[in-house]
């Protein structure tokens, strides 16, 4: 078992544990903090896959900007442990069983897949995740979607202001 495998398992355990803690935390602020832990673990996975640009963007956009927005809204609403009404226990159980069945079906599908046998992921090397190569592709082949995404941001900004406005 080499270093990369140990890192993979450690990051996987951190990601899954933090994701489960997002669900079971009563306090929404704790949920947000655990979700930041998930994002850090996923960024670690990106670094392990040598996708350095996506790792940094994930940290800046998700853990930095989006989670701060969530925390800001939660603190604005002053939510605490008592504010969430609980679903009925049978509905919770049904949801957990449905999610578990989904997981079970897909795992069995992946186990039987012939196409995925003997395929392996290039870990630690490979330079397509570096900013130089991604930037070249982004500003040559993908320049139209890149510009369209700026229009999307503008419309999202206008939409958020219009929805959030008083009355």
């Amino acid at each position, binding site marked *: 078992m080499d270093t990369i495998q140990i890192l993979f398992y450690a990051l996987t355990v951190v990601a899954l544990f933090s994701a489960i803690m997002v669900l079971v935390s009563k306090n929404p602020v704790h949920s947000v903090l655990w979700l930041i832990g998930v994002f850090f673990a996923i960024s670690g996975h990106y670094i392990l896959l040598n996708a350095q640009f996506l790792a940094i963007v994930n940290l800046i956009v998700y853990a930095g900007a989006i989670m701060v927005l969530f925390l800001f809204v939660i603190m604005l609403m002053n939510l605490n442990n008592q504010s969430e009404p609980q679903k009925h226990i049978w509905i919770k159980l049904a949801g*957990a069983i449905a999610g578990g069945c989904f997981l079970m079906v897909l795992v069995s599908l992946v186990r039987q897949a012939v196409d995925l046998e003997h*395929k392996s992921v290039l870990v630690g090397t490979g330079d397509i995740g570096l900013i130089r190569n991604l930037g070249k592709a982004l500003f040559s082949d993908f320049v139209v979607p890149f510009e369209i995404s700026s229009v999307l941001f503008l419309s999202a900004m206008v939409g958020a202001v219009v929805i959030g406005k008083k009355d």
Partner: protein
Amino acid sequence: MPIQYYIYLCLALFSIGIIGVLTRRNAIIVFMCIELMLNAVNLLLVAFSKMHHGAAIAVNPASQTGVEGQLFVFFIMVVAAAEVSVGLAIIVMLFRNTHSVDINFLNRLKN
């Protein structure tokens, strides 16, 4: 590292997100679980991109195969950021009208 490990990890994260959407009533937690599902898909896209890149550079060492997958993840992050801003504005509006973030209040859209 076999691709199956990454698929199992992403499936587990995605299922945790689904269970969260199905079992919680706080709109913000539901929204966070949707973000969790998006991140699981992102991780799987990067893993598949590296899988194809590894297969391609075995043939041609200067190959750039797999860049598309990582750029797709980048665009998913762009769309997720826009979605979060609008979604949180909707949740703030819901809270202002009902003084609660319980998603069962949205039942009134039914009639």
